[in-house]
């Protein structure tokens, strides 16, 4: 099976399902029993759509993200990313699809301690095999976009929590992904900084035409989303868009 090249304009088009999860099941052995984490879950996220996923602790939200981000193979079902069904792909092919189409934003930014802000982004270009000169220019431009142009040469330890998270978002954008997966990106931030991060994720989802899934507990964050999904006991249910979503988008 061949793996398509990095995201093309075709997959960016509004309405295209960038992520399609079809009847996915994940279960773990739990002593003599089996614990079902995801039970025949279906999910489709289109380009430019921001979906928030909520649910109680242990409901399987992170597991769903790992399945959607091709970090874990489900026990059954199909995960299609940017038009590529992945169930039959080898590990190497799945890594390539992930490299070309998926990016993550983490709860604690997950920056590499020995790299400056700009190098965090350049590393992505290096992993993609891009030339250093072009990578640096693009990284600088992305840092400008997240309002961190003046902090490009700072190490993570020299950045505030909000700045680290914005570097993490810029790093995710550096991969030119089709699918952005964010796992509680505002959990460790104070409300003011959290608001800025939510605004930023919302803005890049629209402007870049990303399909974005965010796991979040914060009720206010839902004001910026298209759909709200709830995961509980392995079952995914649509709660619907929050009341102010249309106004926010407008």
């Amino acid at each position, binding site marked *: 099976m061949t793996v398509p090249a990095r995201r093309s304009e075709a997959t960016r088009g509004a309405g295209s399902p960038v992520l399609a999860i079809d009847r996915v099941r994940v279960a773990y052995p739990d002593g003599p029993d089996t614990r079902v984490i995801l039970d025949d879950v279906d999910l489709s996220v289109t380009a430019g759509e921001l979906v928030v996923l909520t649910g109680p602790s242990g409901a399987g939200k*992170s*597991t769903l*993200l*790992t399945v959607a*981000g091709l*970090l*874990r193979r489900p026990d059954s079902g199909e995960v299609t990313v940017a038009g590529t069904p992945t169930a039959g792909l080898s590990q*190497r092919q799945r*890594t*390539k699809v*992930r*490299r*070309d189409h*998926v*990016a*993550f934003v*983490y*709860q604690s930014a*997950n920056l*590499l301690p*020995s*790299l400056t802000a700009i*190098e965090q982004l*350049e*590393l*992505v270009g*290096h*992993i*993609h095999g891009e030339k250093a000169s072009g990578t640096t220019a693009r990284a600088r431009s992305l840092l400008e976009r997240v309002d961190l142009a003046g902090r490009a040469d700072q*190490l993570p330890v020299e950045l505030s929590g909000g700045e680290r998270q914005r570097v993490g978002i810029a790093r995710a954008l550096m*991969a030119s992904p089709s699918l952005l997966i964010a*796992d509680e990106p505002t959990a460790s931030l104070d409300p003011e900084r959290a608001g800025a991060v939510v605004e930023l994720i919302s803005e890049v989802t629209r402007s870049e035409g990303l399909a974005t899934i965010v796991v979040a507990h914060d009720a206010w964050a839902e004001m910026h989303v298209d759909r709200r999904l709830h995961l509980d006991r392995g079952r995914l249910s649509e709660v619907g868009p929050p009341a102010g979503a249309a106004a926010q988008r407008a």
Partner: protein
Amino acid sequence: MFLALRDLRRGVRRFLLLGVVIALVAVLSTVLSALATGLVTDGISGLRALPFDRLALQEGAEATFSRSTLRGDALDRFEGVDGVEATPLGASFVNAASTSGGPNLDLALFGVAPDSFLVTRDDARGALSGEPGLVLASELEDQGVSVGDRYAISGSDLVLPVLGFTFAGTYGHAPIAFTSLDTWQQINFGGDPDERFSAVALSGGSDDDLAGPASEAGVELYTKSEAYAGSPGFTAETTTMTLIQGFLLVISAVVIGAFLTVLTVQRTRQIGLLKAMGASTSYIARDALGQMAILVSVATLCGVALGAVLVTIVGSGDVPVELNPTGTLGVAVSMIVVGLIGSAAALPRIVKVDPVIALGVEQ
């Protein structure tokens, strides 16, 4: 090695301990290599300097002069072979007590025919052809021995003058001395030498040319390097040194492998993150191995340089150390190769890291 280089540059303290350990092992390896070379030189440099290709010794002598006694008939077998020069060689260890106030000496005494190919200098030929006496290794001149000093040779009634000095050299850790074959026989066999000597030194000819005469004479042939094994302690010393160096290399590999394994465990989440970002396992492995290659190379080169300085300082005294460029380079290359082999021990852990841990999910 995008990440490896920056990690090394900004995490100097983290890598310092391993770098120092590798450098110290490299210092020790360099000093041991120099000591091994020095001991070899001290053991056989005199024999190595003699211009022969092969030695014929009595069967069962195992290259040891003291176990070999030959007579003229053995020499006769080789003298008729085309393209081969053959000459008798006497070799023994003697104590020489000064009768003129100089230092007493332990000598590796070689008895040679003055007109043979073993004596290349005309002045030495002249000296050995005249009255009985000793031509000594030049380093003895530095120890206060002078031409004209007289030495009583243990085990004989002879008191021999120092006739001159020749090239520096030792055999069995004793400075070499030359005397005429007649004098050597008189020292070792008294009034009944019966043409006895230790070995036949051969120049020219091939194994095929010499195999027949050797068999007829009942002797065994040794190349020059094979003959070194007969130097007292030579095999034991070189084997011991090689073993110590081998152990050091194994220790290096284990230390480096253990360090990288611990580092890999500490970096598990970081490796997971890189995998989640789409880095292949080979990309991460190249980065980790490259980092170790740089660290091991720099630390080894620093250690070898420091070792060379130490050898130079120690070598100016009485310790038999000698820097050998090939041996020193060999130490450096071996350390780097062994370091990389040790580093490879951490690779399975890198392969095993599951990218799900980047999201804080247990593997």
